[in-house]
């Protein structure tokens, strides 16, 4: 119930292509779904986040699609660039009074030049 399942584990995309990473959750009490980007030797940094009252959120080349009924959400990176090569984590949090983020297992993205 507390897990967030993330796939794929690794992804290789050509420059200019679309990268898609998927996450699924079970706990319907989750109400905040961020995506974090982590470069080697750095801490995770917030990329984009969504709440379940919207089905899509776009920021530049990054889009979250959210399917509440299926309990799934995904990150789309349009026009992927070599600089996007990093590990991406989806996460979920339950309520503003809760202090625990549950992270997915991560996806290592490599964008080929």
């Amino acid at each position: 119930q507390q897990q967030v399942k993330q796939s794929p584990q690794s992804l290789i995309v050509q420059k200019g292509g679309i990268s898609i990473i998927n996450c699924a959750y079970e706990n319907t009490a989750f109400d905040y779904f961020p995506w974090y980007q982590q470069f080697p030797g750095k801490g995770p940094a917030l990329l984009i986040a969504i709440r379940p009252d919207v089905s899509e959120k776009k920021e530049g080349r990054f889009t979250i699609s959210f399917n509440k009924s299926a309990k799934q959400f995904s990150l789309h990176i349009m026009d992927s660039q070599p600089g996007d090569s990093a590990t991406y984590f989806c996460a979920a949090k339950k309520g503003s009074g809760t202090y625990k983020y549950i992270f997915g297992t991560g996806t290592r993205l490599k964008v080929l030049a």
Partner: protein
Amino acid sequence: DTAVSQTPKYLVTQMGNDKSIKCEQNLGHDTMYWYKQDSKKFLKIMFSYNNKELIINETVPNRFSPKSPDKAHLNLHINSLELGDSAVYFCASNQQGTEAFFGQGTRLTVV
């Protein structure tokens, strides 16, 4: 101006030693966390403090003891280090309802 800073960045130590990792945040956040990232990049929460009070203590061996002298600092002390403790430890902070900000991590290697 670093928002969440950890020291040291690298720590190499022998089995059985005791070591500490320090974390400070200058964001004015009430909540701070310690996460452990293993070799497969999996991020697992260890502890969470809110206003110096322990809120979350996941199933972490009691060799790990967090201490929060004030809400801007959360330190992690580890006794009797074991090989399996080798990992990257991340400190993070947030304000209720907002995203978590992570530090740069401390790579702990136990030899």
